[in-house]
């Protein structure tokens, strides 16, 4: 019996190979020759300063920190660490630019600057993509095809709003707020900078941006673009540093608006710090999204969506589909196909155009992923990773799938922010809804089914700000993004994203 089935399997494999169609069981892993993008397209300076009042300069106390390439652990550059005096200077520059130049400027003129920035991002996209992959560790195909084009699109989209605010539906004469203090994460460094700066500037605010400590370089290159685009000094300021720099910025009395993207833990600290000040606050925080697969879903498409949902950007995605909820009747099939698919993913050099899985952004994040996956095993879930050679140097974690996960497990409750998928099962649509919503988070969710009425029903029931049906991890500047519950408040993108930067 076993022998016969093996023979049938071999025959099926041969047939699949002959057809060159969908891989059958145990699909062959094709060997690819290295196809590295050239690192030389971007010049990485040995040292970077803060961008304050239109010029680059060292920190007042001369402190610096190193940013490293997480794929090799090699230092890329020394970057100025902004202290309270630097934050003061940046806020003062932003205030002066707001009052004297940017605030009084007609929206149609602001728009031209933003269009110029968008164009320069497009023109220098290859440089940005390589720099992003060097500093962040993400595969070049993602920085090239997702991060940089979307960042440019964001500036382009909001440029068009700058002279149409009267018609944005917030009542007559909406006013900017003043100086925006913006703190962004390391997972999409340039894209998050664009999400923050573009709507703020379009609405007439000026900005002090604090990039993440481990990924400051593309924000500083963007500052250079702002400089070259002739943006008036002080309209955009970039202060690099760690958490203390961000804390100094959000609690600075000269800041009128605080926007933060990052962990729910830090988001709560910021909300408490801003309490009672009257500063307008928007938060885009963590998630633990359910990606729900029904038995009538097209399985191959669903598997692609599951892979994209959790392994895109090494799972360093707040809206990652980190909880797979699969209907019991197809659970075994889905998990088996998923494992087959994962054996074909290529992990390695982020600058190689064939790479699917890049490096984990930092040793701290790697430690957190390792700790949570160990907890997953200790609590009784079954761990699986494809055979996978990890590079000797750098921070790496293999794609990992946990089955036999229960809702009480830490890996089903806590945001791992890494390439780790927890598989849970359900029987009825109601059970899927209950399990999907059983989390303090509410950022995103996925639905895979062929039944339209079920999609619409579920989309209504899920307490999440973004619902992807038969797709996952799609982003667009015209599409509002943001969370319910402890995933934050306010939206980024679309008309709704303007509200965060107007006195409405």
């Amino acid at each position: 019996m076993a022998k016969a089935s093996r023979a049938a399997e071999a025959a099926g494999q041969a047939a699949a190979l002959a057809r060159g169609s969908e891989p059958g069981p145990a699909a062959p892993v094709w060997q690819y020759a290295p196809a590295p993008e050239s690192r030389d397209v971007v010049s990485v300076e040995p040292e970077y300063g803060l961008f304050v009042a239109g010029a680059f300069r060292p920190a007042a106390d001369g402190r610096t920190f190193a940013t490293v390439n997480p794929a090799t652990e090699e230092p890329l550059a020394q970057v100025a660490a902004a202290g309270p005096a630097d934050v003061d200077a940046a806020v003062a520059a932003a205030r002066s630019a707001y009052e004297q130049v940017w605030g009084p400027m007609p929206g149609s003129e602001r728009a031209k600057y933003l269009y110029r920035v968008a164009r320069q991002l497009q023109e220098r996209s290859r440089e940005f993509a390589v720099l992003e992959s060097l500093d962040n560790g993400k595969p070049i195909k993602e920085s090239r095809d997702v991060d940089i084009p979307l960042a440019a699109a964001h500036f382009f989209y909001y440029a068009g709003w700058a002279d149409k605010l009267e018609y944005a539906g917030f009542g007559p004469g909406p006013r900017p707020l003043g100086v925006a203090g913006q703190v962004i994460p390391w997972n999409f460094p340039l894209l998050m900078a664009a999400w923050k700066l573009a709507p703020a500037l379009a609405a007439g605010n000026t900005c002090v941006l604090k990039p993440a400590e481990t990924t400051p370089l593309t924000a500083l290159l963007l500052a250079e673009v702002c400089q070259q685009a002739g943006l008036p000094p002080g309209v955009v300021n970039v202060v690099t540093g760690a958490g203390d720099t961000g804390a100094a910025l959000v609690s600075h009395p000269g800041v009128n608006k605080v926007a933060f993207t990052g962990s729910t833990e830090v988001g709560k600290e910021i909300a408490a710090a801003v309490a009672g000040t009257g500063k307008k606050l928007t938060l885009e925080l963590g998630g633990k999204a359910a990606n729900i697969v029904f038995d009538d879903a097209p399985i191959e498409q669903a598997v692609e969506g599951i892979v994209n949902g959790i392994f895109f950007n090494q799972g360093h995605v707040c809206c990652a589909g980190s909880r797979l909820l699969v209907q019991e009747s197809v659970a075994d099939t889905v998990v088996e196909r998923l494992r087959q698919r994962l054996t074909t993913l290529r992990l390695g050099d982020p600058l190689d155009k064939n790479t699917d899985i890049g490096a984990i952004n930092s040793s701290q994040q790697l430690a957190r992923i390792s700790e949570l996956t160990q907890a997953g095993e200790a609590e009784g879930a079954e761990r699986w990773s494809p055979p996978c050679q990890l590079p000797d140097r750098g921070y790496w974690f293999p794609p990992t799938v946990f089955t036999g996960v229960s809702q009480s497990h830490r890996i089903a409750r806590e945001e791992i922010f890494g390439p780790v998928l927890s598989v849970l099962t359900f029987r009825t649509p109601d059970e899927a809804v209950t399990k999907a919503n059983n989390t303090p988070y509410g950022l995103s969710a996925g639905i895979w089914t062929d039944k339209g009425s079920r999609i619409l029903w579920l989309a209504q029931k899920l307490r999440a700000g973004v619902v992807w049906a038969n797709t996952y991890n799609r982003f667009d500047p015209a599409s509002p993004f943001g969370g319910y519950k402890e995933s934050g408040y306010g939206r980024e993108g679309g008309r709704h994203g303007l509200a965060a930067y107007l006195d409405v």
Partner: protein
Amino acid sequence: MRKTYKLYIGGAFPRSESGRSYPVHASDGTLLAYAAQGSRKDARDAVVAARKAFGSWSGATAYNRGQILYRVAEMLEGRAAQFAAEVSATEGTADAEAEVAAAIDRWVWYAGWSDKVAQVAGAANPVAGPYFNFSVPEPAGVVAIIAPAESSLLGLVSVIAPVIVTGNTAVVVASERQPLPAVSLAEVLATSDLPAGVVNVLTGRPAELAPVLAGHMDVNAIDLTGIDPAGRQALEQLAAGNIKRVFYRNEPWATMPGPQRLLSFLEIKTVWHPAGT
């Protein structure tokens, strides 16, 4: 016969579980009644009732919610004389009839938003790809409201109606010194087809009740309008514990509001689906 003023929780009118009550005086200092002095436990019970009611109220059609709120306005109208007497006694207002009329108008104005807000606050989004993409407003969930200390009826309806019309459920802390119109409003709500738990009314000390609600992990948003500016910071810090949406705005209640208050207790949900053959 003198009326007993009780709490309104989950569609019932209990006394405070603490057994406490406190005297309510007219503007001229005469004793009007004793009101229940709600406890922290009463506040938690009210949150449970509001959560229980959230699924069906938020899932009701906008048309249905609108109809029920119009019905509330009808019942308010029917008891206009009683409200005018209470407002007059507690606030010392010369023209209490006008304030009651304004409160009814305000309620009707918000009722009409039920089936319009999605068209005003929602969107079809032109994304750069083959996707159908739309955004719709949804209620934030359970909303705690510290009602204005003054304007015991007009101010009260001006903070409750915008919260519940979109499908939120509410726990309301009435004005401490002027709670009687709030209890009478609860009686109107109880007889207006509004499902139990959609609005829960607590009377008592905001200083005691607001921290419980601000720190409660199953409350999604809080309106601090009735809190003095000096008291906001501590409550906002408590609200940060589960990322509550925080709103406050002391408006001139007699002026017609815009939709900002109503829009502040909404989430925007965006749904994507591929378009293809």
